[in-house]
């Protein structure tokens, strides 16, 4: 249970920080491609630092993989969203969307992991 809660907390934390980091760097009307790329870079940087800090408590790959998806794709989404002011007018709203995104990514990866787990090859001897 510690790890399940920890995974979701870490995902939500990384999502919120990515959303706030992107909000700080992207302004309304910024070229959307640049906003997307900038968001991705910010998200990747945040995920790298937090992934390293959190992995001793949650496991290297169980932290790194969701964090990379949240940082990379979340950063891109948040960047585009902020460039056209599409929702989340306040910082609290932006952080909440980030947390929600983080939790959804963690859930999605857990479901995917369940589906993939088990024998791929079993020659049986």
């Amino acid at each position: 249970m510690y790890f399940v809660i920890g995974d979701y907390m870490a995902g939500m934390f990384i999502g919120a920080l990515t959303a706030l980091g992107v909000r700080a760097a992207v302004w309304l009307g910024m070229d959307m491609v640049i906003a997307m790329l900038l968001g991705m870079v910010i998200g990747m940087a945040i995920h790298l630092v937090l992934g390293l800090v959190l992995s001793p408590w949650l496991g290297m790959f169980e932290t790194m993989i969701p964090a990379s998806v949240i940082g990379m794709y979340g950063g891109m989404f948040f960047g585009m969203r902020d460039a056209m002011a599409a929702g989340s007018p306040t910082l609290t709203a932006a952080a909440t969307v980030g947390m929600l995104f983080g939790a959804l990514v963690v859930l999605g990866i857990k479901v995917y992991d369940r589906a993939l787990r088990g024998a791929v090859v079993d020659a049986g001897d």
Partner: protein
Amino acid sequence: MDTETQRKWDEASRTFDWFTFADDHRLGPHKRRLFSKIRGATLMVAAGTGNDFKFFPPGQHITAIDISPKMLERAAQKAAAYQGTIELRVMDVCALPFPDASFDTIVTVCTFCSVPKPVAGLRELYRVLKPDGQLLMFEHVRSKIGPFGIFLDLMTPLSRRLGPDLNRDTVGNVQKAGFRLRREENVYLDIVKIIEAVKG
């Protein structure tokens, strides 16, 4: 002896145990299940600081090697606590001093992400394994899932400086070295795997 690799892992030995707390708890039961298949004379490659000794079934005689003397210094206490015999030796997996067909079982844990010439190392394991011997591996590999695989490729130049590569095709390398795959099992996504192989 590959002194560059040795130096890297000597450095890593200082913080190695710090990073294994969660992995021990999350992955430990899978390792214990894999190691329950150990039989006969056993070689453990890249023992590190000995964190995985506690997952070995009791009563075995195991030769545990690592390229890093500093890692093995830390492993000595854990080896002494094991209810069996663990003999620690500094050794490069690509140049093993054992005669052909010396071992019934060879065990690796997150080893072939770090060996600079993985196929050469695996061929050396093939040589020292008995004809009816088994190779039991717990390894992380490159994901075949698009975004995860690309991410692991992007991260590898950075991770390689501190420790392992993240994008190795270890299942393919095992087969390239001549082994026949007996079992491949996903433990986390398609990244952390149990790989069991026998002489082809």
